[in-house]
Every structure is written in structure tokens, then in C-alpha cells.
């Protein structure tokens, strides 16, 4: 791999929450200008990984570099400066509930630039047009559906034309139509702006259709990585279980528990 083409580098990352180890040595290279997907079953810490990349959480050991900057060694002020070059799309959209759609998209520009009002208006309308919600600019977030919220959040995330954009479960809980819309949008945004994208998801079909490179997380480690085409034909049992959505396999259906029969028969000794 050519090192100068890496935008984000995750090296030997360990992270635990309480007694639970979430990451046990994760290494990742996220290439510049490509869409990289991070996949894995629910609870494998995908969102946590995004928060580590964004500098909202601190790892136990290991480091994350973005464009050569060690995220967790930066001073608070430098970290906030770095974040201006990133956009993040939260699972819930996370729009500011006291601001209208227009003001939400205008927010990053208002706080980070001195653009005149007329120009802010033009840029906001442009971004809203890109996600197809120019007509909804005067609505409040509470009046929008889940899919629309996410589209507005996408418009806000790209308002400052970031170099890196992080998508947290963009397809979860969407109806097929808005799912299709979002897939198209993410692809379009990436092509138009040439930015680096990281998508965290467990919706295999949609993610595979737009990702250039895929990492699969399991048990706190990178289980497999490769291009979508390579992974689809991977012979590893765990990879193929995940890729083809089989209910039971190496990744067990059951939460770890004592033996079923002895557990049921052992009624008197219940805790």
C-alpha cells in the first residue's frame, strides 16, 4: 500500500469501556478519496470506532492519525480546528432541534466563516438542493421524517466541503425508497466533492454497492478486509456467515449462557 495515499490510519487500537474490551488491536488504512466501509455485527463497536476517529473518545493504547495528525495528541483547540475538515452524519441525524432546517445547514458556515448573509443563503440552498430538500428549508427538525432528517444532516455535514466524512449507520431504519435515495446521495457526494468517506454499517447490500474497500470487524479485531468483490467470495466461515446473513455459524446466535437443559432443570438454584 502506498502510504501517502492514506488519509486516516488506525494503528494497534485498544479501547475498553468498563470491564468490556471493545477493541483489541485494530489496524486500518483508509485511502484518500475513496469510500471505505466498516462492517460488523451490532455491538461490535463500529460507532465507537467513529468516535475514536473523531477524537470524541480516547483509546487505551494505539493511535489514530488523520492526514498525518495524531488525533489524540492534539490540544483541544487544534482538535476543533481539525474537526472543521471533517463532517459526520449521525445515526439520528442529530440536527439542532431549536433551529430550522435552513439554520441547521447554515450553522457550520455561521460559526466558522465570515461569509456575508447572501452567500450563506446561496450555499445553503445549493446544499439543500443537492439532497432534494430545498423546499423544506423553513421546517423545524421535529416536522421531518427520519429519512429527511438524515438528508438534512448530510447537507449540514457537507456544508463546509470537508475532506473527510464519517457516516454512522446511514441506512438503519430507512424505508427502501429513502435507503435508495441515501445510497445515491452518498455516492454522488463522494464523486462530486472527491472526499474521503468512512461508512459504518451492517446493511451489506447497500454498503457493498458503494464501498471501494471494506473492513469487517468482529470480536474487537479486524476479521477481514478487501474489496467488496474479494470479500464476497471469501471462503472464511465467519466472513461468509456475515456476508450472506446466515443466522447461526461461527458468530453464535446465542449470548454466552450455561447449558440450556441444566439451566432449565436447575430451577431451584436460580439466582
Amino acid at each position, binding site marked *: 500500500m502506498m502510504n501517502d495515499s492514506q488519509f486516516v490510519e488506525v494503528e494497534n487500537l485498544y479501547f475498553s469501556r468498563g470491564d468490556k474490551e471493545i477493541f483489541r488491536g485494530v489496524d486500518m488504512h483508509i485511502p484518500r478519496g475513496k469510500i471505505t466501509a466498516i462492517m460488523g455485527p451490532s455491538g461490535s463497536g463500529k460507532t465507537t470506532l467513529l468516535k475514536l476517529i473523531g477524537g*470524541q473518545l480516547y483509546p487505551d493504547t494505539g493511535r489514530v492519525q488523520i492526514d498525518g495528525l495524531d488525533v489524540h495528541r492534539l490540544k*483541544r483547540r487544534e482538535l476543533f480546528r481539525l474537526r472543521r475538515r471533517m463532517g459526520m452524519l449521525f445515526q*439520528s441525524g*442529530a440536527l439542532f432541534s431549536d433551529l430550522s432546517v435552513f439554520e441547521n445547514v447554515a450553522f457550520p458556515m455561521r*460559526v466558522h466563516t465570515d461569509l456575508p448573509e447572501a452567500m450563506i443563503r446561496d450555499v445553503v440552498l445549493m446544499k439543500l438542493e443537492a439532497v432534494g430538500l430545498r423546499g423544506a428549508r423553513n421546517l423545524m427538525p421535529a416536522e421531518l421524517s427520519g429519512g429527511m432528517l438524515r438528508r438534512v444532516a448530510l447537507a449540514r455535514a457537507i456544508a463546509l466541503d470537508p475532506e473527510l466524512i464519517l457516516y454512522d449507520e446511514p441506512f438503519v431504519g430507512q424505508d427502501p425508497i429513502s435507503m435508495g435515495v441515501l445510497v445515491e446521495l452518498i455516492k454522488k457526494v463522494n464523486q462530486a466533492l472527491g472526499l474521503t468517506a468512512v461508512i459504518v454499517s451492517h446493511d451489506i447490500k447497500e454498503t457493498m454497492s458503494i464501498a471501494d474497500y471494506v473492513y469487517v470487524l468482529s470480536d474487537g479485531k479486524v476479521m477481514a478486509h478487501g474489496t467488496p468483490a474479494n470479500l464476497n467470495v471469501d471462503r472464511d466461515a465467519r466472513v461468509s456467515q456475515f456476508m450472506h446473513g446466515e443466522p447461526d455459524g461461527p458468530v453464535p446466535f446465542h449470548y454466552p449462557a450455561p447449558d440450556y437443559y441444566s439451566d432449565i432443570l436447575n430451577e431451584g438454584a436460580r439466582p
Partner: protein
Amino acid sequence: MIKQRIASLGKSTLDTFESLGRATIFLCQASIGIPGKEGFHLWLRQMHFIGVMSLAIVLVSGLFIGMVLGLQGYTILVDFGAEDALGQMVSLSLLRELAPVVAALLFAGRAGSALTAEIGLMKATEQLSSMEMIGVDPLRRVVAPRLWAGFVSLPLLTIGFSVVGIWGGYLVGVDWLGVNEGSYWSNMQASVSFIDDVGNGLLKALVFALVVTWIAVFQGYDLVPTSEGISRATTRTVVYSSLAVLGLDFVLTTLMFGEL
């Protein structure tokens, strides 16, 4: 068994100190807001929600407490033939104790719990996270204006409480029970010192304002972002700030009026 108890005592002690430390760092980071016109507008907005919206409950309570003081004070003082000292009694009780304490308790219930719930909900819906990712420090943009609005509002509310309460005492004592109007005011004026009574009362209000707002915003910022977490944190805000106000009141009273 005993070993376990001791260990859990140690754990809760460490947890307490850890969260005190976090709260202190939090206060330092959140004390500097956004400068300039924008920061002023954010502060103004919070002054409206925190101060102006609490005005009604504080003033009505002040009026009733003043009236009750007038009534109770009269029945006690009239036995000694000292009902002329009613103004003094009403004003000193209000200025030194009741106005700062009761206004702070009401403020914790009305504004403090709302602050915790609001910030907590912003945290639960990832609004604070997304603000961080946009490159805006939520401590400066969300917390600082609220902290300062609370710090300014409560002393103003306390002044309002005193004024309305003294007027309530006048209403009951002079208008209804027939205490001499001149002696109500002149006894008051002779015994109330602006620095010692009004000033110390205001100092108490400033301390309470800082503590109550601090507890409220910290509980909101530090809570577990679930609906249960928000309800627990809201309760904690009211309980902790009420206890802190009453405890600190004793300490401050000892320092100010206890002649130690």
C-alpha cells in the same frame, strides 16, 4: 463481607472525588463563552429562559412569604408591645436568609431541572456530539451561556424576592393589622445596613447561583444518555442543589453574621 463493604466504601469515595474533579475541570472549561455579539445573543436567550421565565414563581412566592412574615411577626411582637419593630423583623429575615435561600431553592426546581433536562436531551440526541464534530465546542456554545445566565439571574431574582416580600409584609402589617406606617419603614431603615444585610444577602445569592447552575449544567452534561438517565439526573439536580444551598447557607451565615 467486611472486606467487601470497605472496598465499596473506597470505591464510592474514589467515584465521588473523580466526579468532583470532572465537575471542576468542566466548570473551568465552560466558564469562557463565545466572545462578541454572538455570545451575547446566546446569553440573552438563556437569560430569557432562565431568568425571565422564573420571575413569576419567585415573585409570587416572595409576596406570600412576606405576608406570612408580617402576620407571624405581628402576633409575636404584639405580645411585647413591639409591633413597631415589624418592618425590621420582616426585612432582616428576608434580606439575610429567606430571599437568597428560598429563591435559590425555587430556582433549582424551576430553572435547574429544566437546564439538566435540556442539556441531557441534547446529549441523548447526539446534538452535543454533532456540534463537536462540526468543530464547535459545546462547552462554550451551549453550557457557558447557560452558566452565566444562571449566575446573573438568581441575584436579580433574589432582589425581586426581597422587594416583593417587604411589600407583602407592609401589606399585612400596615394595611391590615394597623402597624404605624412610619415606624414600619423607619425601624427598618434604622436597623438594616446596606453592606451587612443587603450586601451579604446578595453575596449569598451569587454563591447559590453559581452552585445551583453549575450542578444543573454538569448533571445534564455528564448524564447517561437514556430516558432513565435524564430523569435521574434531573432529580439529582434538584436534590443536590437544594442540599448544597442549605448547607452553604449555614456556612455563609456563620461567616457573615456569626461573629466568629
